[in-house]
C-alpha cells in the first residue's frame, strides 16, 4: 500500500531533520533483539515442524501383513541372511575391517566377499535366484508344523498361498531392497578400497595415470587379478575400457 503524499512528505521531512541533526537514517526500524525474538525464532520453529512432518510422511508405519507374506518374508530373510553369512558381508560393516599388504588388500574373507558379491550387479537375476531359494527353503529352527515346511510345500497344502504375479512381484521387490542395500554396502567397501589403494600407491607407480578413468581401470584390473573384483558400477564409474 503506497503512502499518501502527506505521509511521503512527512517521511522526507523526518529524514531531512535526522540528517540535520547528524543522525543517519535508520533503514531498520527493529532492533537486533526484535529480529531475533520476533522473526528468527518463529521461523526456526516453523521450519523444524515442517521438516518433521516431511520425514514422517516418508516413513511407513508397520502394516498388518497376510500370512503368505509372513511365511514368505521369513523364508526370504533366512535365505538372505544365509547369503550374507556365506558371502561374509556382515564381517565388513566398514572398510576398516579389511586387512592390507602395502597398497593392496590382503584379506581372504574380503576376497571371497568380492567374488560372492558380483551377482549384486544383476539384482533382478539375483532376486529371482534368492526367491527360488527361499521358496525351497525349509527353516531349521526345529519344531514341526507348517513353519518348517518349504513354501512350496505350504502352497501344496494351502493353494491360497500360491504366488501369483503380484505376490511374486512383492517378493522380488522385498529381495530387491535387500540386494540394493547389499549393493550399496559393497560399493562403499569397494570405494573405500579404491581410495585406500590410490592414497597408498607410491609416486611413479604404474597404476597412476594422469586420467582418472585410466587410473581407475588399472586399479580395478589389478584388484581383479588379485582376487578382489569390483562391481561394475564401481569399475565402470569412469566408463568402460578408458585406457
Amino acid at each position, binding site marked *: 500500500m503506497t503512502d499518501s503524499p502527506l505521509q511521503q512528505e512527512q517521511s522526507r521531512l523526518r529524514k531531512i531533520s535526522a540528517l540535520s541533526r547528524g543522525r543517519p537514517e535508520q*533503514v*531498520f*526500524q*527493529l532492533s537486533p533483539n526484535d*529480529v531475533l525474538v520476533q*522473526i*528468527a525464532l518463529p*521461523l*526456526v520453529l516453523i*521450519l*523444524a515442524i515442517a521438516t518433521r512432518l516431511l520425514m514422517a510422511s516418508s516413513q511407513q508405519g508397520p502394516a498388518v501383513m497376510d500370512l503368505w507374506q509372513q511365511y514368505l518374508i521369513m523364508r526370504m530373510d533366512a535365505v538372505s541372511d544365509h547369503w550374507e553369512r556365506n558371502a561374509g558381508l556382515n564381517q565388513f560393516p566398514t*572398510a576398516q575391517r579389511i586387512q592390507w599388504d602395502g597398497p593392496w588388500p590382503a584379506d581372504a574373507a574380503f576376497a571371497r566377499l568380492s567374488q560372492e558379491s558380483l551377482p549384486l550387479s544383476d539384482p533382478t537375476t539375483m532376486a529371482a535366484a534368492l526367491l527360488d531359494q527361499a521358496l525351497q527353503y525349509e527353516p531349521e529352527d526345529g519344531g514341526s508344523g507348517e513353519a518348517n515346511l518349504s513354501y512350496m510345500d505350504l502352497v501344496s497344502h494351502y493353494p491360497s498361498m500360491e504366488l501369483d504375479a503380484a505376490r511374486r512381484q512383492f517378493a522380488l521387490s522385498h529381495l530387491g531392497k535387500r540386494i540394493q542395500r547389499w549393493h550399496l554396502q559393497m*560399493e*562403499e*567397501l569397494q*570405494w*573405500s578400497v*579404491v*581410495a585406500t589403494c*590410490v*592414497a597408498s*600407491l607410491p*609416486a*611413479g607407480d604404474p597404476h*597412476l*595415470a*594422469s*586420467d*582418472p578413468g*585410466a*587410473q*581407475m581401470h588399472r586399479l580395478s584390473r589389478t584388484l581383479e587379478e588379485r582376487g578382489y573384483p569390483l562391481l561394475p558400477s564401481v569399475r565402470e*564409474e569412469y566408463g568402460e575400457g578408458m585406457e
Partner: protein
Amino acid sequence: MKGWIVGLFLCVCTGLLPLSAQSTAKQEAKRALAVRSAAEWVQEQQELLRTDPEGILSGKLEGIMQQTMLADPGAHAEAGASRKRTEALLREVLQQELRRLEAEGRKRAEAHSPLPVEAETWTRQVGLPDTERDSWMGQTLETPLREAYPRARAAAVDRQVRDLLEQTRPPDQATVDAWLSSVSDENPDSLLPRNKILGLQARLQQAQGVDQKPLLREARLQLDQQAEAFLHKLADQAAFQQQALKHAAAAPGAGAPVLAEAIRPALLAAVQEALAEDTTGLKPGETRYDVFLPVQEDASRFADRLERRALMEALEQGGWSVPDVRAVDAELRRDPRRHADPEKSLRQLADHFREPAQQAVLSGILARAEGLSAPEHDRLREELARHLTEFPEAGKRFDEQLHALLAERTEPLRETLSREQVAPLMERLETITPLPVREVDRLYAERELRAYAELQDLRAEDLLAPALSTSDRWLQEAEHLALKQTNVLLADAEAAHRAQAELLRRLEQDNLEALKQEVEDGVSLGKIRRKWEKDFASRWQSHPTADSYPGLFAANRRTLEKILRQWYDRLVEASARPSVSGEGSADSEQDIPVEETPADQQEVVIQEPEDTTRNADAQESAGSEGSSLDPEELDFARKAPVALRVTDVDGDAIELRVYYGELERHRRVRIPSGSGEEDMAALIEGLDPGLWAEAFARHSPKRGWLGTQSKATPVPVLVWVESRNVRYRTMIRMRETLSRALDARALEQGLVLPPMEWTAISDGTEP
C-alpha cells in the same frame, strides 16, 4: 517489509545448515583418484618441462633472454655476469611455470572430484621439496643456457649493432678534414700515417654517439671493428690522394722555373682527376671524400718545392763564374793577417762574396724563365731569393757550393802567397846551411836541439829575426813552411850531435880495459885524453856529417871529459896510487881523508849539470852576498830551505852560491879548484854557518803543551853541481866540515838542529 525479507533469509540459512550432506566413500575415492591423477599429470608436465623447456615454453626462453639483454645492456655487457642474471631470470620464469602447472593440475583435480581439493593436500601431493627444487631448476636450465643463451646473446648483439648503425651516419667532409688536419699537425714528417688515422676511432665513435651508450661487449667489439674498417678506408683514401699528389708532383714538367701559385692548382686538378678515375677499394654505399685539407696543404708545399726546383738544380750543377780568381786573390792580399787561418779565411771570403754569388745564381735561373711577365719575373726572383735564405736545404747547398768554389780557388793562391812571404827566410836559411857549430852548441844548451813548434820561437833567434820581420802578417801555410825548413836544418845538426854521443859511449866501452891498464901503468890523464880524442876523430871522420861538423860539439866534449875523469879517479883510488902532476891545474888535487858516507844521509851521485843561465857579471869575491837573483836562481832558491849551487868561473875557480829561501838571503863565495883545508874553512865561513843554523833552527822539533817534543825531521839541502872541477869527494868533505861547524854553533847557542838531507841534482830540478 525489508526487515521481514532479511529475517527470512537468515532463518533459511540457519535452518539449512543441518541438512549439509557428509562425504561418502565414493566421493572420497573419487577425490583421491582425481588428486592422484592430477598430480600425475603435473609431474608429467614437470618432467616435460625439465627435458624440453624450450619446447614446452614454445621458444619463450630465448626471446626472454634476448629482451632482457636489450632492456639493460649495461648490466649484461659482460657475458659472465649476463649469464648469471639470465639464469636468475629463467629460474623465475620456471618458478612461474611450475606454479601455473600446479594451479592447472588443481583445477583438473577439482574438475574430476566431487569434493573440494584442499590446498594443503594438493601442495603436499605436487610441490617439489626445496632440496630438490634447486637441483631441478639446474637440470632444467642446463640445456637452454648452453644452447639458447648463446643464440639469444648473438641475436641481442646483432639487434643492438643494427639499431645503432641505422641511427648513425658517416662523418662529413668538414669533420674529416678537421680530424686529418690534427693528425697532420702532430706528424709533420709523415703527413697522414695510417696508425694515427686509426687512432681517430674514439672521435669517430663520439661523433656517432656510440661511446656513451651501454653496449654488450660483443656489440661494442663489432662496432669497434666497423669503426676501424671505416678508418682503414679513410686511410686508404688519404694514401691514394697523397700518392696521386706525389705522382703529379714528380711528373716531368717544364724545365723553366714557375711560380708556386701557378703550380698548386695544377697539382690539385691532377689529384681530382685521379680520384674520379679510381674505381677500386670502395664498395657501393661507402663514402668517397673529396681532396682532404692536409693533402691540399701538402700540394702547397709541393708547389713551393717545385718552385725552388730550378734553384736546387742550379745549385747542384755548380759551375759558377762568381767569385773569380782575381777577386779572391785581391781579397787575400788586401789583409793577409785576417786570412792567416784557412778555415776562417774561407768563411770570411764566403761572407764577402755571398751576395754577388747569390745574384749571379738567380740571374742564371731567371734567364731560363719562359712566358713570364715583368711583375711575375720580379716576383719569381723574390721567391727564389726567399728560398735561398729561408729554405735550409737550399741555403746549405748554396753555402757548400760557395765554400767548395772558394776552397778550390784559394788553395793555389794561398800557396803562392805563402811562398812569397817566406822567401826572405829561405834565403837566410840557405846562408846558414849547415848550421854553425857554435849555434849548434848554443841550441843544444838552450833547447837540446828540439824542433821549433811555433813561429815565435823562430822570431827569438837573432840569426833569423831579420828574415821574420813581416811574419806577423804571414799565412798559416807560410808559418808551416818556415818551421819545416828551419827544423830540417836543426834535424841535421841534432842527428850529428846524437851520433857523436853514441860514438862516445862506444868509445868508452871499447877503451875501458885499456884505461885500467894505463892507470895501473901510471899514464897521465892528459895522455889518455889525447889518445881518446884521436880515437874519436878517426871513428867520426867516416860519418856522413863529419864534413859539416868535424869536431866534437861542446856538450859532447864535456861528456868525454867527465867520463875520463870519473873512470880515472875511480881507478886511481882503487889502485891507491897518487896522480901524476904537471899536466895542468885541472889535474892537481890533494889527498884528503874522506869519511865514509853515513847511510842515513841520502846522497845522490852528483851529475854534470848544464850551466844555462850563469850570470856573466858575477865577479864578486868570496863570501859576498850576491846581487838580485834572476828567475832561474829564484826558482832554484825556493825549492828547499837551503840550496847550494856550484859552478865554474873564469880560470879554475869554483863559485859556490848558497840560497836560504825561507830567509830570503843568499851568499856567494869563490875558491880555487883543488882547495885545501884552509880554503875549505874559508869556504864554510863564506857560506855563513850562522844563517845556515838559523835556517835549520826553523825546522827544529817543537815542544808540545804537555812538554813532549815532536820528532826531528831532516831538512832538505839541494846541491846543484855545475862544475867539472868539483869532485864528489870534495862535496863530501865540504858537507862534513859544514856539519861539524853547525854542531859547534848549535852547542854554543844551545840549539837543537835537525839533521841534513843532502840531495844532489843535475839540471836545477829536483831528482
